[in-house]
């Protein structure tokens, strides 16, 4: 019984949050890795692209709520999501036209692209703060829990409860759907195949008559969609704050690099690796250990390896280890 209680506690505080967070990171890292594979630079504006898409979605959600449209038990934001994606895609395509295309034609060095993406990041960040303000915004509505602690206890009669938030369930389901669609697109459709070809060998792809501008455009559309979905899911699960989205850049980059930059499968694996390490290392294990270990061995303190304020340090340390021992990532990505 104690072991079961330990497992329930573990699921409640570690497994479920980590799976949800991992899905959000994986979606973010997929965007970074796609940009890296096709456009060949690390997009520093990705965190703020997420923030921008989320902001658009929030504004539309508010409009829907004001108009009395709702999705029943599900958050209204889901209905607003396609519109948010559209707004984000338009903005991202505009930045590509206005900013990145010039450097592509110049065949500028990757580092120049990174720097330019920094400028884009500034502008997006500024716009988001300008439009919606720098403060916390909560926009989740509908049913809060799929199963709440009280219901779970009543159901099973266990001492420890398990809660699954609607947003957590939603995150995982949405992530699975999005990833399945993405892989279907990349592996089965003509455009997806041309994208992979372009990513593998640009010159060869050009020779076979693939239109690079079209590939780039499709990439940006997919990235806008991925970023908005990731951002909205994160915002629903936690809350929306522009600065937090900027800070997400570090775990997202870490995920993409751990998995192997340019490799979509790696991005997903990396996202979960980072999320699980972060949650496991910053979780206070006292309760779980109290159930799982005999009384004599139970810890006195919180049994927390690192305080939650250092969650970025976790992704960073993993990043450093990967860079030191396996710079191409777990799934061999591009090293150049």
């Amino acid at each position, binding site marked *: 019984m104690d072991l079961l209680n330990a497992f329930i506690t573990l699921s409640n505080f570690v497994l479920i949050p980590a799976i949800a967070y991992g899905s959000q990171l994986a979606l973010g890292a997929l965007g970074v890795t796609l940009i890296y594979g096709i456009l060949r630079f690390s997009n520093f504006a990705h965190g703020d692209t997420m923030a921008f898409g989320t902001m658009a979605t929030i504004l539309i959600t508010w409009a829907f709520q004001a108009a009395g449209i709702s999705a029943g038990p599900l958050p209204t934001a889901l209905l607003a999501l396609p519109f948010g994606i559209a707004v984000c895609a338009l903005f991202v395509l505009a930045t590509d036209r206005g900013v990145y295309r010039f450097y592509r034609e110049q065949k500028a060095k990757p580092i120049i692209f990174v*720097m330019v993406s920094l400028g884009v990041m500034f*502008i997006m960040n500024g716009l988001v703060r300008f439009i919606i303000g720098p403060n916390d915004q909560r926009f989740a509505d509908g049913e809060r829990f799929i199963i709440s602690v009280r219901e779970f206890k009543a159901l099973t009669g266990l001492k420890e409860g398990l809660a699954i938030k609607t947003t957590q369930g939603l995150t995982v389901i949405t992530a699975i759907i999005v990833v399945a669609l993405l892989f279907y697109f990349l592996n089965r459709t003509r455009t997806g195949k041309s994208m992979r070809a372009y990513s593998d060998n640009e010159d060869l792809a050009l020779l076979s008559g693939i239109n690079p501008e079209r590939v780039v455009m499709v990439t940006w559309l997919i990235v806008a969609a991925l970023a908005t979905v990731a951002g909205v899911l994160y915002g629903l699960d936690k809350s929306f704050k522009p600065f937090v989205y900027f800070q997400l850049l570090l775990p997202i980059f870490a995920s993409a690099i751990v998995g192997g930059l340019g490799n979509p499968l790696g991005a997903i694996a990396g996202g979960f690796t980072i999320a699980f390490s972060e949650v496991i290392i910053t979780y206070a294990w006292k309760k779980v250990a109290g159930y799982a270990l005999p009384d004599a061995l139970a810890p006195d303190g919180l049994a927390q*390896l690192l305080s939650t304020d250092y969650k970025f340090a976790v992704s960073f340390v993993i990043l450093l280890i990967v860079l030191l021992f396996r710079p191409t990532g777990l799934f061999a990505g591009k090293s150049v």
Partner: protein
Amino acid sequence: MTDTTRNFVYFGFIAALIIGTGMMTSWNLAITIVNFGLISAIMALGVNLQWGFAGLFNVGIMGFVALGGLATVLISMPPVGEAWAAGGLRVILALILGAATIVGAILAYNALPKGYVRALGMIVILIAGFFIYRGVFDGGVQAVEAVNPANAGYLGGLGLPVLMAWPVGGVLAAGAAWIIGKTALGLRSDYLAIATLGIAEIIIAVLKNEDWLARGVKNVVGLPRPAPYEINLQKSETFVERVINLGLDPVTASTLWVKTIYAGLFTAVLLILFLLAQRALHSPWGRMMRAIRDNEVAAEAMGKDVTARHLQIFVLGSAICGIAGAMMTTLDGQLTPGTYQPLRFTFLIWVMVIVGGSGNNLGAVLGGFLIWWLWVMVEPIGLWVMQITTSGMAEGFWLREHLLDSAAHMRLLTMGVVLLLVLRFSPRGLIPER
């Protein structure tokens, strides 16, 4: 127009801007802008060393600046005797143990044969070391932080003159840079950017959370100053007499005088670093750096150790940022980890370097002053623009309120637009590299 006259025009323009600010608003503001402009110029010199000379992309300037600020506290504050007695040695011992663990793991990595034995050995050493470290560390920290938490609760510093903190800040930043450079250099170019972005966030997290070190978000205030206090000046009869003879108000004059002393110190540092950077740029070493930047493969074929040279210049540039950080904390008279924002301390410096002219030290200095002036002035100008655009709208209209409230965020937008415009239309900057 020759280069020299053009430069004179540029710097004359900056001087006019600052004097104009002094006449339009107050001299106090003008000299504050000069002081921060000097510090910004030094940071820009450091970044220019990395980017302009070697093409290294460092987005963790904030972290190195914050380490400089930490040095100010560690050097200049008086030690807290009680805290040292309570657990100071225990904390230090824990830190030594922690360092020993890492060294042990590295030694094991080098000594053991490749394979599972090595991986297992390292993991065992690291995990055991971590638990021993935490066991020693936690008790010590609790004891230290329990000592008079309202005013102290930390170990304090060494009680040395504050000016000594400036070089020490450089050394601390150099140490952090060495660790980052050692791992991320030699790989693809944007890995360094990502690693520096990370280390900056972590340094700030450490400063915010390790209360025993520098009081965390409780801030260390009242740092010793290299200049006299205004209040003492106002009490000093000779000072008041001299000022009144000049026809000035003693209160205003004392603040101006103190800030002028700071400006003098900062100018001295800037001049020294500028001359050194100039010498380095025009030495064989500087030419080698630029050769590496322009074509790494060719330089490597000529027998240059690209990674080692990159590490060298990365450490040097970060050290300069650390020095500037220590100077800034000295000027503020307090260490407030909550105020370190990547926008203000990393990206702003980048805009300075790019606008001024990457690869040109004079350009970095120019960019430092110009962009700092812009940064200070964008907010009032933005508010003014907003007031004009909204003047036609009714009082209390939501759009009007929103626009007025948001004027503060104009800074980000302006800096982003400036960066993109310069990168696109004048990528070599105002004073291009020769």
